[in-house]
């Protein structure tokens, strides 16, 4: 059964897109067909991680939401950009990076119900095993919809008081939406923090499973958005932790 995974964080800058891109890649390495939707329409960016050049972007999610094209036309196969170890496929649905189109979608909004139709069509036509939705930070309508239709909600947070509070809100809202499976990823954890201690405290605070604790990494910072980390650093501890997330997602539901 295909599954929808929403990747969310209450605040920006938590590494949500990076986590999405890396986990999607690792799932594809495991042989799965993975769709990634950049639903962060206000501040898109995951296409850069997948090496999708702007002039080759063609149709975007915005075009679909405005009825200019089918959702399938917005999906770009980025598998070739992920190295030779990927046995499955990764399809990316980018959001428009044109300033005018971003301004328009923010000004006029769109029918969020179309998102669900689009997601369902993508899963069917591309024969996806997993559809990952890189959501906009915070809890606006389209994010709530994404969460509401998800089989798995992956919440990314940093060890930071503001994130703790915001994540508490997200977890509570997700429970009210009856999301079947909810997992947390604690990202950018200072190296001095004991990983097991962080995991235990976060799980205790939210009564939710922690899929991974990802330490702060200079290599990750240096790579920035220049590529998908797990393909550049296959033996790095962060890659190992992200594999746990991919493994956990594969087992969920």
């Amino acid at each position, binding site marked *: *059964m295909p599954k929808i995974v929403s990747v969310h964080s209450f605040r920006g800058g938590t590494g949500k897109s990076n986590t999405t891109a890396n986990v999607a890649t690792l799932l594809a390495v495991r042989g799965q067909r993975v769709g990634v939707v950049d639903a962060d329409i206000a501040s898109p960016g995951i296409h850069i991680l997948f090496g999708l050049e702007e002039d080759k972007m063609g149709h975007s999610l915005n075009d679909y939401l405005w009825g200019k094209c089918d959702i399938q036309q917005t999906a770009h196969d980025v598998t070739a950009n992920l190295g030779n170890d990927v046995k499955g496929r990764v399809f990316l649905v980018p959001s428009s990076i044109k300033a005018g189109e971003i301004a328009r979608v923010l000004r006029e909004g769109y029918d969020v119900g179309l998102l669900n139709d689009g997601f369902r069509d993508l899963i069917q036509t591309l024969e996806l095993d997993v559809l990952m939705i890189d959501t906009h930070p915070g809890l606006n309508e389209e994010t709530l919809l994404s969460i509401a*239709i998800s089989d798995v909600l992956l919440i990314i947070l940093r*060890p930071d*008081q503001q994130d703790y509070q915001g994540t508490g*809100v997200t977890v509570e809202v997700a429970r*009210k939406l009856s999301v079947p499976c909810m997992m947390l990823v604690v990202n950018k954890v200072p190296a*001095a*923090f004991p990983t097991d*201690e962080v995991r235990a405290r976060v799980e205790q*605070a939210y009564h939710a499973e922690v899929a991974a604790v990802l330490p702060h990494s200079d290599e990750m910072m240096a790579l920035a958005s220049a590529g998908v980390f797990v393909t550049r650093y296959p033996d790095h501890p962060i890659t190992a932790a992200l594999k746990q997330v991919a493994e956990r997602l594969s087992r969920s539901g």
Partner: protein
Amino acid sequence: MTSTGNILVVDDDLLNRLVLSTNLQEQGYDVAMAENGRQALEMLGSQPFDVVLLDLVMPELDGFQVLEQMKHDSAQREIPVIVISALDEMESILRCIEMGATDYLPKPFDAALLRARLNASLANKRLRDIELEYLEQVNRVMQAAAAVESGTFECDSLNPVAARGDALGQLARVFQNMARQVYAREQSLRQQVQELQIEIDEVKKARQVAEITETEYFRDLCARAQRLRQRNGK
């Protein structure tokens, strides 16, 4: 005159003691006298001496016994002992040197020879003191390393070693600096772990959740989500 060393003269013969002590005092030494071996050991146990001039034949404890006991006492074994003896007691002199005596002084005393042998013994004693102090401070550094390993290290314990101007002093200073840095990092870690306290303002959270969930949109979304899941076959 500034003292050039503390000398203990041990001899049961009063005249010998007086001659020796007068001579030594004239040369600038501080002199204490013991009239037998037992008294000598008591004095050695209660005050520091740089050299012992030791007669061999004495009542109560003789010179051999004093020497033997000194060599078994860690605080006294490094004190140079010059045996006072007649030249015809060469066998005894050799025995004493085998037992650890530094030198011997033949009777009757020769002032120049006494001065020369005392100076040599004192020079050796001072070198040995420096060596022992060095070894003691090396031991302190080793103890410090063990204390670091067991988590009981106190930085100030190395202050006497760190005050040295030589390589050992530099080693101790580097050691102290590293330990201080580690301590600072530990403090920082404790601070960070405290920051790991996850404190959620439940009242604020409830308000924020209510702002989202007590809306028409959310109620509609919940109903739609259920329908959508059913439609998606979940």
